[in-house]
């Protein structure tokens, strides 16, 4: 009896050992083996995308998803009438025999741990060739860690924390400029405003920010550049994202006495903050917002007339289309398909897909190492992107060095580009009228 059980056990162990895959080869190498084994280029190239599709940032997640899906649709179908990379090639990736892109989405739910887990799943189970994501810098940080470990390229199109490129990663590439560059843009803008409105631009600012990675970084960089450009930061007020009431925070801003407010908030908290400011009659010369909630598609509908005159740094604006026709072309298609205009988020996510597709096409392969090499050689000119950048070219840290921000002001319920002056479509209004005087 015992001998038979032992024999059965031995057989089971041997069978199990035979079934187990030897080692844990990085996904990249596995793909090399597969690619080498099959001489045929793949019909489909899988791109993994991890975004907050549920949770507090879900509306933004949907917007990003739309941008990405549109990009993939345009590339797969080909559009000879639009001057974007690959679109004149007749559909699909030309150097891979017309292979089509296929997106595999995963939900981060806004949580860094979940984002990382989902990235691992996309790479190891779904076998995506390249990863993209994740909007929130905190989630991108962990998700790209997984990609770095598994040696798969991670192209980040919308996260703005500068710490993301300070990690010495080899597989991380970011097309969007970061909060450090944007913070500097604020002060360049203020200096220009001071020459336009001499004596009316104060030198004291106060900062209101969320207490997450995004907000803390904004605080850090604004303080850094304030010193460089000789502005005084009177105080920084941090608040929790889920706070149901912002009275104490707004009263602190009032107590600081600074005439210029710099704000880093998401949609619900931005709405709450502005309403509280109005109710409690707290006034500023200007509110300079760092993107995020202030550029959400629901921001102006929710806040209504109270959003008027607010300034936000933006990465993109619809009225760039007056100086750059492809912006209008693409936005019209987006609007026809999804019912709203593009935003800086969807426009950047859209552009990110082109960076990925362009690199895979030049790599002529879905091998991770070849795609990584191709990404390093990326050089897309300004005329072929829907962004106000001077182009896309990555430095040794993986950062696109040719990006820049713009400042938009809400005038008449629309975002109007007011800076840099050569891209402005309308003049700046300064200062913001007081609440009681509107």
């Amino acid at each position, binding site marked *: 009896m015992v001998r038979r059980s032992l024999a059965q056990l031995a057989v089971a162990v041997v069978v199990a050992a035979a079934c187990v895959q030897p080692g844990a080869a990085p996904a990249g190498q596995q793909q090399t083996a597969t690619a080498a084994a099959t001489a045929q280029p793949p019909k489909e190239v899988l791109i993994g995308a991890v975004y907050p599709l549920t949770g507090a940032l879900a509306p933004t997640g949907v917007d990003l998803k739309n941008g990405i899906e549109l990009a993939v649709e345009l590339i797969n179908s080909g559009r000879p009438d639009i001057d974007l990379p690959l679109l004149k090639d007749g559909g699909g990736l030309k150097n891979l025999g017309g292979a089509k892109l296929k997106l595999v989405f995963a939900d981060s739910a806004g949580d860094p741990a979940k984002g990382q887990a989902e990235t691992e799943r996309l790479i190891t189970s779904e076998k995506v060739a390249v990863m993209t994501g994740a909007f929130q810098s905190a989630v991108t940080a962990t998700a790209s860690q997984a990609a770095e470990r598994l040696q798969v390229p991670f192209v980040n199109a919308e996260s703005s924390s500068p710490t993301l490129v300070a990690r010495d990663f080899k597989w991380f590439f970011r097309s969007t400029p970061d909060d450090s560059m944007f913070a500097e843009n604020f002060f360049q803008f203020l200096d220009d405003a001071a020459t336009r409105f001499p004596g009316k631009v104060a030198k004291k600012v106060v900062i209101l920010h969320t207490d997450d990675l995004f907000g803390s970084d904004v605080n850090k960089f604004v303080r850094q550049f304030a010193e460089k450009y000789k502005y005084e930061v009177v105080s920084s007020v941090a608040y929790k994202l*889920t706070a149901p*009431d912002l009275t*104490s925070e707004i009263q602190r801003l009032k107590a600081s006495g600074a005439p210029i407010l710099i704000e880093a908030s998401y949609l619900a908290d931005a709405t709450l903050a502005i*309403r509280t400011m109005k109710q409690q009659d707290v006034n500023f010369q200007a509110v300079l917002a760092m993107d995020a909630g202030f550029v959400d598609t629901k921001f102006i509908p929710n806040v209504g007339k109270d959003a008027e005159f607010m300034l936000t740094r933006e990465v993109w604006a619809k009225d760039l289309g007056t100086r750059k026709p492809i912006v209008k072309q693409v936005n019209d298609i987006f609007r026809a398909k999804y019912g709203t205009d593009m935003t800086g988020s969807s426009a950047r996510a859209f552009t990110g897909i082109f960076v990925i597709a362009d690199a895979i096409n030049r790599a002529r392969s879905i091998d991770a190492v070849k795609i990584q090499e191709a990404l390093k050689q990326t050089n897309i000119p300004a005329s072929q992107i829907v962004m106000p950048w001077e182009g896309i070219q990555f430095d040794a840290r993986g950062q696109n060095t040719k990006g820049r921000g713009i400042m938009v002001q809400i005038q008449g319920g629309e975002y109007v580009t007011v800076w840099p002056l050569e891209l402005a479509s309308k003049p700046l209004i300064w200062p913001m009228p007081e609440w009681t005087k509107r």
Partner: protein
Amino acid sequence: MDIVAQTVASGVLLGLILALSAAGLTLIWGVMDVVNFAHGDFLMLGMYASFFGWAVLGLHPLAAVPGVVVVLGAFGVLVYLAVIRPVLRGSVLAQIFATFGLGILLRGVAQFAFSADYRQIGDSSFATGSFAVGPVHLGIPQTIAALGALVVSGLLFALLDRTTVGTALRATAEDRRAAELMGIDTGRMFALSWAVGAGCVGAAAGLLATYFPIFPDVGAVFGLLAFVTVALGGFGSVGGAMLAGILIGVITSVAGLVFDPAYKFTVAYLLYLVVLVLRPQGLLGRA
């Protein structure tokens, strides 16, 4: 000084809403010894009900409050019959999981049915209107909501204190067996406690919806605070919930002024811990 006055005033207004929603929660706990972890999500449903009343039927959100109370009350009974009553036979852990799972389900269904978009009940001039009392500016919808909370709480007190049904409820809360022996149908009392408890949450939701954004996860914003309020005030004590609600509202508000606002809730939670250690049954709970 103006700034402190403003902060305290806003804290009281918020605290009253918190108190009302906590009152509903503590009632259910008191009568049934069941903690409704889906409480925040009931609030969310109530807010959506108010929103659709406005969007589809054109009802002013204040006018919709009685309707939302009834809808949520009915929903509370439904939850009791379908989810809670069967699970009462099980372990306490099963009861916790049941309401917790219900909360997650409600959130998922809401996101699926209504999308993740943030809704706001239109007319922003009402939502941002304010009037001044000396140096203090009070938001109009917040003040109306706080007054509404006072009224509903008053009605709740009257129900519990002055009516036979209320006495029966309190009897069931005190001692279930004794109540049964006195001829009180405890099954009916349980259902009623859910109806009234959920109705209170509905009232709070309807009042909040006049100025607060509505989205599937809004329950998380108020849910945890409601639990702390109930625990601070004393499980089962409606008066305690009211007192604790106002306290938490004022304390978090003032803490945001004195300390870094990012830690203002920490102060409230710390206070709760201190009370727990010194007086575990809460401020007004029964020992």
